[in-house]
C-alpha cells in the first residue's frame, strides 16, 4: 500500500494537481535530510530546489524539524547510582 505522494505533496500547499512532477523529489527529500541519499540523488534534489518553491519550503521544514529534535530535546543522563548498581550486579555474575 503506497502513499500517494503527489496528492499528499499537493495537499501540503493546497494545489494538488500542480505538483504532479515532484514525486521523485519527495522520495529523495527524506534521504537527503537524513544523509542517506547518493551523491547523485542529492545533487539532483538540491538543484531542483532552485526551481521549485514547494519542494524548497518542504525541505526547509523537514530540516528544521530534524534540527529542533536534535538540539532542543533534553538528553537525559543516567543517574550516577545506575552505573554503580550495574557494576555491582556484574561483579557477582
Amino acid at each position, binding site marked *: 500500500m503506497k502513499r500517494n505522494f503527489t496528492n499528499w505533496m499537493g495537499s*501540503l500547499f493546497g494545489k494538488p494537481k500542480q505538483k504532479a512532477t515532484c514525486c521523485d523529489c519527495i522520495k529523495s527529500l527524506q534521504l537527503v535530510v*537524513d544523509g*542517506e541519499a547518493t551523491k547523485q540523488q542529492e545533487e539532483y534534489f538540491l538543484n531542483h530546489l532552485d526551481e521549485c518553491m514547494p519542494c524548497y519550503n518542504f525541505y526547509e521544514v523537514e530540516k528544521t524539524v530534524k534540527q529542533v529534535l536534535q538540539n532542543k530535546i533534553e*538528553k537525559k543522563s543516567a543517574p550516577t547510582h*545506575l552505573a554503580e548498581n*550495574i557494576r555491582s550486579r*556484574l561483579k557477582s555474575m
Partner: protein
Amino acid sequence: MMTEDNLNNEEIRPENEGHDPELEKGSVPELDPKAKAEKDAQFEKEFMPLISSLYNFAYRLTLDEDDANDLVQETYLKAYRFFASYEQGTNAKAWLFRILKNSFINDFRKKSKQPSKVDYQEVESFYNSDDVDENITVDLRIESIQDMIGDEVATALNALAVDFRTIIILCDLEGFTYEEMAKILDIPIGTVRSRLHRARNLLKEKLKEYAGTMGYNK
C-alpha cells in the same frame, strides 16, 4: 551453574539475544578470577560509556525514570551474559540498543500499561484519507518550529505511539543510519523509511497543534 573454567561460551550467538530474555542468570559460565577481570575490563571499556545514551533511549520509551533504570540495568545484564558473542570493533551501540528495545517489547510492555503496538493499518488509512491530508503541516512555519522550547518538542514527541516515537529517537536524536535502525528494529530498510516518514508527519501534526495553542502560528 557451571563450575569448570569455561571459556567455551562462543557458542552463544548474538541471535539468541532477544529471543530468550528469561535466560537464567546461572547460564553465565564461571570464569577464573583473572579471566573474569579481563572480561569485566573489556565490558567496562566497550559498553559502559554508552550508559547515558541507553538511559535516554529507555526514558524516551518508558517516560518514567524508575522504569528507565530497570530497563537499562536489564540491558546491561543481558549484554554481559552474551558478551562472549560480541565481536569487538563491531557496533556496540547498535547492539545494546537492540537488546534494550527487545527487552522493552518482550518484558516491559507486558508489565507496564503501555498502549499496545500501533495499528499500522489504521494509521495507513488515516494517511490515505483525503480530508485528513488537508491538515498535514499546511501552515507549519519554520519560525513557529524554531520558536518552540525543548519541552514542547518533547511533549509532541512523547504523544506519538511508541513505534513512531522509537524511530524518531533512533534517527534524529541518536543519529543511527537506516541500516542500523533496520537491525535494531528487525525490520526491512523500506519499512524504516516509511515508518520514519509517517512518524515525522504525525510529529509535525502535533507540533502544529502546539504552535496553534501557543499562538506561534499567527
